[in-house]
């Protein structure tokens, strides 16, 4: 509003440098993916899309991508539905142990991923289940639920029950009042919950790596490829994912960016 509150030059300078350093690795990554040769250097030597073309030959990446997307979509949908049920129970009904229940349902958030992975490994191998699709589905539902639930509960708390009650007093059945009045209102919240769940599943590495017996996920495939190969194919794939994230954020900007800039993570 005035020169009084505008920031100090030092703050601007250091801030810009830090933000620059923060994006630098991603810029390098994208640059590397356009190398003409096999070296992973930045600035790229020459310009080519050959490493992107090369992705088509990598059946492993394609399979991993399919599985990862399926897991992320599936676990996001399930988590949002399950959270909606639990969220409604917790925010709309009073019963003893309500706060405790919420704490319990959110408790996986503070359990380190490596511990979660270890627990799944021990249990599933004891049960003789060595099917990655089954185990990963189970794992991803468990780890995405608390992320979704946290967002859904906040959305439901922001929209108080009084609106539903008003609708009911006008003759709507409780179920109709909920789906007709509340669900449309918290739709942005549900979408945000789905986005968080999706991303949590999509990028999960540490817990998932304990369960990749016969199939693998994209982050793990990238990790393995970085460890074992020395060309920019992984950089090309990673750059594609970064581009997808950018598009995704541009599309969901309204729900996610504002939400996060307002400080509600």
């Amino acid at each position, binding site marked *: 509003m005035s020169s009084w509150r505008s*920031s100090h030059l030092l*703050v*601007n300078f*250091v*801030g*810009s440098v830090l*933000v620059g350093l*923060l994006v*630098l*690795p*991603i810029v*390098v*990554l994208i640059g590397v993916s356009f190398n003409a040769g096999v*070296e*992973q*250097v*930045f*600035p790229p030597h020459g310009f080519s899309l050959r490493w992107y073309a090369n992705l088509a030959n990598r059946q492993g990446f394609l399979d991993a991508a399919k599985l990862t997307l399926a897991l992320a979509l599936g676990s996001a949908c399930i988590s949002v539905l399950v*959270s909606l*049920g639990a969220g409604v*129970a*917790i925010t709309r009904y009073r019963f003893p142990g309500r706060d405790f*229940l919420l704490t319990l349902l959110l*408790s996986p958030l*503070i*359990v*380190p*991923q*490596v*511990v*979660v992975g270890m*627990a*799944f*490994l*021990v*249990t599933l*191998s*004891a049960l003789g289940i060595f099917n990655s699709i089954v185990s990963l589905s189970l794992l991803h539902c*468990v780890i995405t*639920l608390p992320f979704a639930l946290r967002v859904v509960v906040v959305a439901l708390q922001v929209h108080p029950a009084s609106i539903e009650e008003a609708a009911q007093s006008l003759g709507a059945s409780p179920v109709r009042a909920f789906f007709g009045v509340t669900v449309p209102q918290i739709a942005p919240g549900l979408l945000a919950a789905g986005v968080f769940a999706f991303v949590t599943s999509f*990028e999960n*590495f*540490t817990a998932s*790596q*304990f369960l990749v017996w016969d199939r693998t996920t994209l982050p793990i495939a*990238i*990790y393995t490829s*970085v*460890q074992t190969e020395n060309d920019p194919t992984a950089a090309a794939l*990673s750059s594609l*994912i*970064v581009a997808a*994230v*950018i598009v995704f954020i541009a599309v969901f900007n309204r729900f*996610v*960016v504002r939400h996060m*800039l307002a*400080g*509600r*993570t």
Partner: protein
Amino acid sequence: MALVLPALLVIATFFAMMSTMVVASFSPADAVQGIRTYTLEHYRRFLASSFYWGYLTGSLWISLYCTFITAVLGYFIAYFMFRSSSVVRLVVGSVLIVQFFTAYVIRSYAVMLLVGKTGFLNQTLLALGIIDAPLRILFTQAAVAIGLVQVSLPFMVFPILASLNAIPTNLEMASASLGASRFKTFWTIVFPLTLPGIAAGVVVVYLFELTSYIVPGMLGGGYADMIANLIYNKAMRSFEYGFAAAAAVVTLVVSAAIVYGLNRSFARITRYAR
């Protein structure tokens, strides 16, 4: 209460698996099928050997100083955003959100390309004549530290930004009208009021860094493994489930204690609000 049932089912699965792991951590390595016996051998082995124990203390130490660095840099970025025009704020915010939503494995890989022997950093320093030979950063603890800070910065910036946004402009005006220079206003009003945000960021970041796997795995290259790498290697390379489970239980207990302790001491900061 049919509504909560699915959620309860999911959480019950989770706790069942956690208990199986705890049971496994007390089961002898050479257990015979069908016979239940309990032993402390895995815990004894983990806690008695400074080699294994060192993974935990090493992880505690590196994540401690990395959390500190993350907090300082994160504060700078958040404060810069807070003081900037809405356009700058949106641009920097978008950068952070892209980071936030990009898988850690990709961000670690990107840092790897930056600090590698022929990476951009070394090439720039060589070209500028600052160094004569490439620095060995990749596969050292320094690379791990850089990666941890880089990857966890968004977790720090958002809560701090939220606490800055929550400070009414009137408080700064009041402070200035009472004779405080800009720096004094920052130090006596703004900074103390953002301590809750810093605390929230510190808890998340410390827990995240303490138990990270990808960053030490990729940027440490086996030379700077942390506790999560130990657990994974024991379980998946040498199939010592009992030992890995014990290490996981110890890690869980330690991190839970840290979260509890930090939350307790940070709760004191905001006593004034009650």
